[in-house]
Structure formats: C-alpha cells, structure tokens
C-alpha cells in the first residue's frame, strides 16, 4: 500500500507533502499507520460537509493506492470528520518532517 499526502492552503500558503510506501516502513510504523487508516474507515466515511465561506483553512488530499485500486480523499479545515483527524495529524507531521 502506498499513500500520498498533500496539504495546501492555510494562512501561510506553504505546501507540505509526503509519499509513503508502507512496505518500506518499519513493521511497527507500518502497523501504526495501517491502524490509523483502518480506524478512519476511509472507505465508508460520509462525504464531509463543505464550508464554502471558510478562508485560510488547509486543504488535504490523501491518495491511497493498493493493488490496482486507488482512493482519493479531499477535505478542508472546518469540515473534517472526527474519525479522520488522527490520520491527518499523523500524515501532517510526517509531511512536516519531510521538509527537513
């Protein structure tokens, strides 16, 4: 399984992104990330309500690829399902570390 994560927008307008191949992560790290994905229940997640009047929020794009499948999820600040937040926080920190 591979994951591409991208965060754009925000007050500063600074993009952060990271691409992860779970097979190349440590067993512990891969397991932790897979658990977050499972807990987020991405494939059954309701379509979030959008807040068209929101300004300066982040926009997040998560692309998950496995075998021949691909799932793309886009959410914005102010309309993030609570169940997705731990995964977003984890990926945001990985993207942030990826800048260094």
């Amino acid at each position: 399984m591979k994951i591409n994560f991208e965060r754009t927008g925000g007050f500063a307008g600074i993009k952060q992104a990271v691409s992860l191949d779970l097979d190349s992560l440590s067993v512990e790290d891969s397991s932790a990330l897979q658990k977050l994905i499972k807990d987020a229940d991405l494939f059954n997640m309701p379509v979030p309500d959008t807040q068209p009047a929101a300004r300066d929020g982040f926009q997040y794009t998560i692309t998950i690829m496995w075998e021949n499948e691909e799932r793309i999820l886009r959410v914005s600040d102010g309309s993030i399902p609570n169940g997705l937040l731990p995964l977003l926080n984890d990926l945001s920190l990985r993207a942030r570390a990826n800048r260094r």
Partner: protein
Amino acid sequence: MHTHRHSIYCIVPPHILQSIAKNGQVEQSDKAMHTIVTTEQLRGRRYGIASMNSLTNPAFLGINLPGKDRTIYDAQNGQNLPGVQVRKEGDPPVADAAVNEAYDGSGLTYDLYWEIFKRNSIDGKGLKLDSSVHYQKNYDNAFWDGRQMVYGDGDEDLPAGQQIFNRFSIAVDVIGHELTHGVTQSEANLAYWDQSGALNESISDVFGSLVKQYHLKQTADQADWLIGQGLLTSQIHGVAIRSMKAPGTAYEDPVLGKDPQPGHMKDFVTTTQDNGGVHINSGIPNHAFYFIATEIGGHAWEKAGLIWYKTLTEKLTDRSNFQDAADLTFASAGDLFGKGSREQIAVWHGWSQVGITVTGVPSAPIPPTPIPTSPSPSPIPPSPSPIPPSPTPVPAQGSGCLPQVLGNGGLSSLMKKKVNK
C-alpha cells in the same frame, strides 16, 4: 477621520449600560437607556437587550448598539468549535496568553473598523466577535470558518528543535487578516480562487497591516509592512510570512523554502494549488497598496485605507480581478479626493508599478515623480466614470500627473484590455 463618540459611551461600556438599563433604579435606567438610544440613533446596530421589555428594547426598535462583543473559547486541542468559553467582553485578562491575544487583537481590529471606517464589527451590524484558540494539535494555521476566527498553537507542542511556527494569535495583523475575511464575506464576497481569491487575501493583508499600524500609530514610512511578524521561530531564516513592501522576501529557509510571492504581474504565478495561488499572487495587489500608501504618505489608514474600504464595500463584486481592483480603487480615489487629486494619481502610479494599467489611462511613469503636497489642478475632466471618455490617451509627460484625455471613440479596445493571468 476619528468619529466623535458620545461621552457616556466612551466611559461606560455598552454591556454595562445595558445592565443598568435593565436592572438599575428608574432614574438610572432612564439615563442608561437614553444613552443607548441616543447613541444608536446616530449609528445603527443590530443587537439589543433581548430580555428587556419590548417597548424599551433597542433590538425591538431595530436599533443596533456599537461596541465590542468578544468571546474567546478554548478548543482544547480538538476541532469542535467553538469550544469552552474562557473569556468574554469585559472580563480581565487570564493566564493563557493565546486567549488574551485573541481578545486584544479582535478588539484592536474592531477599533480600526469603527473609529476609522464607522463600521460596527464584521457585518456592520455589531456581529459578535468569536474566537477559538488551541485548535487541534500542532496546528500551524489560523482561519476564518465563515462565522468565527480559529487559531492554532503552531508548533508549541513539539520539541523546541522542531518548531517552525509560534502560535498564530501572536501577531495582531493575523487577527486583523482573519476578521477582514468576514468583512469581505459581508461585502464584495470575493470568490476564493484565482485573481478574485488573491484579491480577497490581499484585502485581508491590507487591513490586517492597517490594524497593526493603527495600533502603533505608525505612518506609512514607519510601518514594517510585514504580515505575520513573530509567527516564525528563531530557528527559521525569515522575518514574517509575507512582505507587502517587498513581496518574496519574507523568508528564505532550508526547511520552509523561499517566500514565493510575486510583486509584479510579470511574475504572476499560474498554479492549481492553493485555489490558484491565492496566498501567492496576493503579493501583487499588496505591493500596489504599499506603493500607494507610501506615495500618499502619512497614516495609511486615513487615505489609502479609506480608498480600499470604499472599494471593498461599494464597488468590488465576487468575481472582481486585479484589473477591476485597479480601476475601482482609481474611481474610489476620485470619488473621495477628486479627479486628478494627488491621491488618485498615487493609485494610478501604484498599480502601474506592479504592472497594471488603470483602464483608459496610460501607464504611469515609473518610478513616479514626487507629487507636490498641495492639490494639483485636475488634469482630467469631471466624469462619473473613472474611465476617461476617450480612446486616445495622451502619453504621460513624466510629470506624475494624469494625462489629459481628449476626443471620442476607440475606447472599447482600452476597456477590454485585461491583465493576463
């Protein structure tokens, strides 16, 4: 431009007046109500005293009371808004710096809009100013959610060596920026993509900077024109998030990269990210405002800010672009200060310096010739339109004055000239 305030209003906050009107003895109540009503008849306001008898209830009478009405909430590192109330209007400071910053910053923003532009809060009708701090964890951002301000703690939860951003309530211009998104939402309601979105962002930067300048009582040449000064930790090579004076120079850091803002149309960035680069290309109108404010001189909020405010509230529409902004600020300057006034010339110069020519007027000489401090004779005939009634502009003479435009016909080609994205 300062507005005279009713003396009692200056001393006694509206919430206290309301309390006296509601709970005081008959004579006290009458005086308080008289103050409320008299003041509000001059200004208008939405909120009143809901629990009072309808015959004496300003809200029932359609009267709005001016005055700050701030409430600060703690999101407790979650994302459910607004969170737990931690400070409301009139409460003393608390131990939490982020709470006090959000309270003070929203108050300073209210002050600018009220005292300079006679605007009663975000919607002009006394909208409550709600803010939530401690949003999520490691959240390096602030945003306007359509109803309230939201501030993250930056990287304050991370080890010191990994910190890039301080908490976002730390900079008063950021607070002014976010609240101004609400003003824009109430007025021009500029779309949030491409040039309209960049204009939306720029307007927030302009008034955010003016909040800071007004608070510090700085003239245009004294101001730093930085947006988000103090947000970056000392580990980052940078002074702020954006620079209106010199877009593209706010930071350059191995981790953060380089400030990507252009300051001229020749460097306009075409991108699909960030809603079409709304936080990038805003550098262009930001730069124009800086040029205009510094050319006019003095306090930027008094003239340049007034031109922008009038344009935002009376002329811009949801799909306005940079060219529209140039044309309409030029028109506003003419409305406010006269056609051919030094202020209108400054607007013409400022947009020219970022590569945008006011429609129907030739490019201004760059750099502009200093403008005399006394009003110069109007070089353009009075007209209800900022666009001179002629397609045949006389080339600028390098005098810094608007060229006289003569004749008729051929205007369409000039009017249709738009900035290429």
